[in-house]
């Protein structure tokens, strides 16, 4: 009996849904038929009475019919109201110029139909290559023998986008988007020097080497300007360019200096916990960046894929505090025999992200 009642309940729910769906579609077909017969004054009542039963797609069609009806009934305020409801229901609605009457397209153009702004998140991976300007060193055989290698870092943060001049008549200007962003970024690269000391007894034989991993975390604030390569709301390739500034949050080195005698035994190793080196860097580093990416609309959001190159305009190393004298960073020099070169980091970044557009379709001008 219980099972029977439960099945009955399910059937009732299913029937209701079916009836509602059928009802919405039927009402729309009826409204379309009435519209085509020219009995426009009947349409508002018919749609407004059944509006609660429409799905989102049906609602868009219903508001479209309603707007058309009001246009031809010469009730402009009501036409505006129904157009606004249409655009609030479907932010990405675009009238088909081959099908829609000119009056309808004209009304559509009086509304702000583009997103007011976009906001979202970006995250991804990066590689940092230090471009060397000047070598500073501690151990006498080290200069010229070291090699810096990029290592994988990551970044994540918030992005804000706003069309700079969306209504400009210039095609170029209307495609420019101001897209500032704040990213928490970790940057890592390694230093490997196989010859920090050479043997006195065997010419050029290595008797000590150094392996260092340099790790930094930054808060990057980038003022990016994007240029949309296609004026589409679905698939938007773009290029970007702009200045940025990095705020150093932390820096540390994992360091190992190893002695290797000529007979390959190791008389000693200098190692230990990471050495904090934040004191040896400047706090703010300006940079410039260029990027290329695509945005693809999935439902109401954009999925973003992006590649970018960022180049620091100055060396992040504080020349007055390179050795970190008086602080923990001096351990890098005195315990491991390493000091930072002057370099400018070049970052290669791959980002993914999700951008959510915010719409507010209001009337922006009278017909």
């Amino acid at each position, binding site marked *: 009996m219980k099972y029977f009642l439960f099945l009955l309940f399910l059937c009732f729910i299913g029937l209701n849904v079916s009836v509602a769906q059928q009802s919405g579609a039927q009402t729309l077909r009826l409204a379309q038929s009435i519209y085509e017969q020219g009995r426009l004054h009947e349409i508002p009542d018919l749609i407004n009475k059944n509006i609660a039963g429409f799905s989102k797609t049906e609602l868009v069609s219903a508001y479209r019919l309603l707007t058309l009806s009001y246009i031809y009934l010469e009730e402009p305020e009501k036409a505006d109201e129904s157009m606004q409801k249409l655009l609030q229901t479907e932010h990405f609605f675009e009238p088909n110029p081959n099908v829609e009457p000119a009056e309808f397209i004209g009304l559509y153009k009086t509304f702000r139909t583009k997103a007011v702004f976009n906001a979202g998140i970006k995250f991804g991976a990066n590689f940092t*290559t230090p*471009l*060397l300007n*000047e*070598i*500073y*060193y*501690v*151990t*006498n055989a080290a*200069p*010229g*023998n*070291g*090699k*810096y*290698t*990029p290592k994988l870092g990551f970044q994540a943060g918030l992005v804000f986008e706003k069309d700079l001049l969306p209504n400009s008549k210039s095609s170029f200007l209307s495609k420019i988007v101001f897209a500032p962003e704040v990213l928490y970024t970790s940057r890592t690269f390694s230093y490997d*020097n196989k010859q920090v*000391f*050479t*043997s*006195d*007894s065997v010419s050029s*034989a290595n*008797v*000590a080497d150094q392996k260092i991993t340099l790790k930094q975390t930054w808060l990057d604030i980038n003022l990016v300007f994007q240029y949309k390569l296609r004026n589409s709301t679905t*698939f938007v*390739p773009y290029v970007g360019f702009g200045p940025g500034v990095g705020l150093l949050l932390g820096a540390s080195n994992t360091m190992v*200096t*190893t*002695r290797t*005698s*000529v007979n390959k035994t190791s*008389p*000693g*190793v*200098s190692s*230990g916990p990471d050495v904090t080196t934040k004191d040896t860097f400047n706090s703010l580093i300006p940079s410039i960046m260029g990027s290329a990416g*695509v945005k*693809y609309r*999935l439902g109401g959001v954009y999925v973003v*894929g992006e*590649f970018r*190159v960022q180049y620091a305009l100055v060396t992040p190393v504080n*020349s007055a*505090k*390179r*050795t970190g*004298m008086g602080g923990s960073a001096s*351990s890098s020099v*005195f*315990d*491991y*025999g390493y*000091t930072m*070169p*002057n370099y400018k980091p*070049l970052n*290669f970044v791959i980002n993914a992200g999700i951008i959510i557009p915010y719409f507010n379709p209001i009337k922006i001008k009278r017909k």
Partner: protein
Amino acid sequence: MTGLYSRVIIVLRKAKELFFKRQPMKKILPGLFLLICISCNESGVKLAKPSTFVHYFNGGTPDFSQAIIKTKSALGSGTPVGGYLILANSQTALTSTYYRIKLIRVDEYGNEQWQSLLPVPQKDAPSYRGFGITPITDNSGLDIGYFMVGEEIYVDPANNNTRTQGLLMIQVDTKGVLVKTATLAATDIGVNDVGAQISGVGVTQAKNGNFYVLGELQGSVAGDMLLAEIDANNLTKVWSRTFGAAATTLVNKVFTYGDSIYWGGTRTAGTSQEMRWISTQINSGSKSDNPYPSGQAYSLSNQPINYTCSDICKYGFGYGFVGSYSLSPGVFSRIAFFRVNESGQQVDSVSYALPYPQQAPYQAGNSICSTNDGGFLILGTAATDISTSDTNYILIKTDAHGTQQWRKDYGGKFIDVGVKVLQADDGGFIILGTTTLANVESVFLMKTDSDGNIQ
């Protein structure tokens, strides 16, 4: 879900079309990939010219710094360049007790210009150490070579083939190439005790071009110090005299003024130690011998205070001394400073506390130099814990009377020992020491600015 999947596929296809099928992108992407993978080599990148620096020098075996001098010399046919010459002793193997002499020439930025291991060719004797060095200058003041004194340990047939310590002298040119060398036994230099050990400690060039050589004597009834004039041409004795009657550890410097020669060190008699300042007349051989501190050898409830002397510097017509202050044998608790006037009379006496009393062999005060502003800079070594498992360098800047103006410490988590300090021409300070990097002693060279800062 199927819809989402198909949309993702569409995105990927469009991205592929955008980035891979267009010709420019086809060319750009491999380049970008290469850039990501590229390693940045130091090779070919210019060396910086820092006004302050920290440099370590080592060749795989323990190196012990001994002395540093300012130098200005032409390296080959080029313009003379200023810099520094470091004298160090390098163990012949990681665990050996024998040494070779190492000379390291650096420019004013601490960059190595040449390095020389001496003597070359290697002789049969097992060990050579250098302690004192002086530049050989021409009339224009440019260096044309360097002269070192030290010790050679050799097998002496005149003393039943026992190992004997002789006075080693080496002259090199401005590139560190050996010019001449000689080793004199004690009997070769006027000490008629077979079996007496002698080592050269300090040297300076005489007005006539010869060298005044200061040595330490052991096992000789004639004395514990030896002063000799050595002929610059054939490295033989012109004259020699012996001094002292106890055991003396000498500072590796010899000063001349007029017809007088000055030197000093630590005199040890029994368990007591004191600073010693000695002068002699070249012609008459008369001498004065002053202990420091005068009249202060016993104080603090009759507890004996011992003073060792590590370095001496010229100060106007007087001299400044630095060493260690000890209340119990082998434990140094303060850095000791003295200044004497031109007559050898004590003018100032100051001592500076250390964070912890430290064990021998780490002397508290290591070196001293007078500064352009009329004061002194003192280099010391200070333990960072009670067991002296780690020591650091300390610099103390004082006025003319030894009153401390600033004090700074430097160093890592291993043993760092101060050796010598100089004032550079730009007003900064050059500090020579012996540091320990990955368990092997290395030559340490640091330049600070005039306030003791390194950038």
